[in-house]
């Protein structure tokens, strides 16, 4: 029994292998920070002025979103959970998401914001795959969305580099490359399973996986450039 118990200490190695990626952790933290700060705003004293500058800016942004979205039969909730191929998806990517980025003012916070958006794009791929919603049009849309988002992430990295924080830039790019590789491998596994089980004859997941791989190759070249500066 004691010999077997010694074997169990192999399990503690999992601390190094089973953990959230930086993107996942930051995404969660941003969500929680939003809840925490939302709680703080909700409990402000009634004697506090409601006309502070930052509150006016936020109120304006929310009103604009409300007018645009509330002007028709479009619902905010429907837009924020839309996927590529859904009619509300452009509302999500062109109005709702940019509005959330208004409050990211430093290069680091902008990078964190872009990381969250990249995670959202990758999660959308997961959902589309699970719900078998991949057709040629959706694939084209998600590939374009991933490319656009990756370009914005790249710009945010460059801005952080310019502040001199090459260590942070290096870490974020490496994590991003790792995340892309993980998602690519997952897609290819799912594709293989579907083809093997005759669920499909169309290599749709592979089309997205190829896009992620291309992006990862570009990122790896960027990583080499950053590492030379460190």
């Amino acid at each position, binding site marked *: 029994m004691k010999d077997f118990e010694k074997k169990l200490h192999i399990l503690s190695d999992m601390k190094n292998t*089973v*953990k959230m990626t930086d993107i996942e952790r930051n995404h969660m*933290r941003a969500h929680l920070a939003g*809840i925490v700060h939302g709680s703080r705003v909700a*409990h402000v004293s009634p004697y506090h002025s409601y006309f502070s500058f930052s509150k006016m800016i936020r109120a304006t942004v929310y009103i604009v979103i409300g007018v645009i979205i509330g002007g028709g039969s479009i619902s905010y909730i429907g837009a924020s959970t839309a996927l590529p191929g859904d009619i509300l998806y452009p509302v999500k990517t062109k109005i709702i998401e940019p509005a959330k980025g208004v409050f990211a003012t430093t290069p680091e916070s902008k990078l964190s914001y872009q990381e969250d958006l990249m995670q959202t794009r990758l999660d959308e791929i997961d959902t589309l795959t699970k719900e078998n919603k991949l057709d040629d049009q959706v694939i084209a849309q998600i590939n374009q969305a991933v490319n656009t988002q990756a370009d914005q992430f790249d710009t945010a990295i460059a801005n952080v580099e310019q502040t001199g924080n090459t260590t942070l830039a290096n870490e974020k790019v490496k994590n991003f490359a790792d995340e892309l590789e993980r998602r690519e491998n997952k897609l290819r596994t799912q594709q293989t399973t579907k083809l093997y089980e005759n669920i499909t004859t169309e290599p749709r997941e592979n089309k997205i996986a190829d896009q992620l791989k291309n992006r990862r190759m570009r990122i790896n070249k960027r990583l080499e450039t950053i590492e030379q500066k460190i």
Partner: protein
Amino acid sequence: MKIDTTTEQIFLDAHTNHSDAIFRYCFFQVSNREQALDLTQDTFVKTWEYMAKGGKVDNIKAFLYRIATNAIIDYRRKKKSTSLDSMMEDGYDIGHDERENHEQISDGKLIMKSLADIDEKYREILSMRYIEDMSITEIAKATGESENNVSVRIHRGIEKLKNNFESRIN
């Protein structure tokens, strides 16, 4: 009710310090990465809701594990957990480090599969003990059980795990 910045800082520090451990705990109970992320986030949201209402938390680590355990129980009521094979598909693999010897990798994989097969109440405790290196006292606080019960459950859990492990080898 006014929420002070100390409470916020305690909460956000708890996320920094314990989010990976809670994620691992959830992951080994539900065998699905995305679900584990959801459960981890739910755990922290519920913890914040409790703290924001003025709830006192003496030991935040233990509190998080209790909330996570309840969240997992609720999840299980709704859905069945997936197999270990799907964990591998999600990108997790034991022994990725080439420096480890093959026997250890092989044992590790078998132990993982055996852990997934044993009863949930033993899997929870063994995960806390051998993956998170928690002490008996910490596990007792996290589960709300007595230290004696925790020790007994660990011992029984190891027996069941060992039996499962050996039957896989044979």
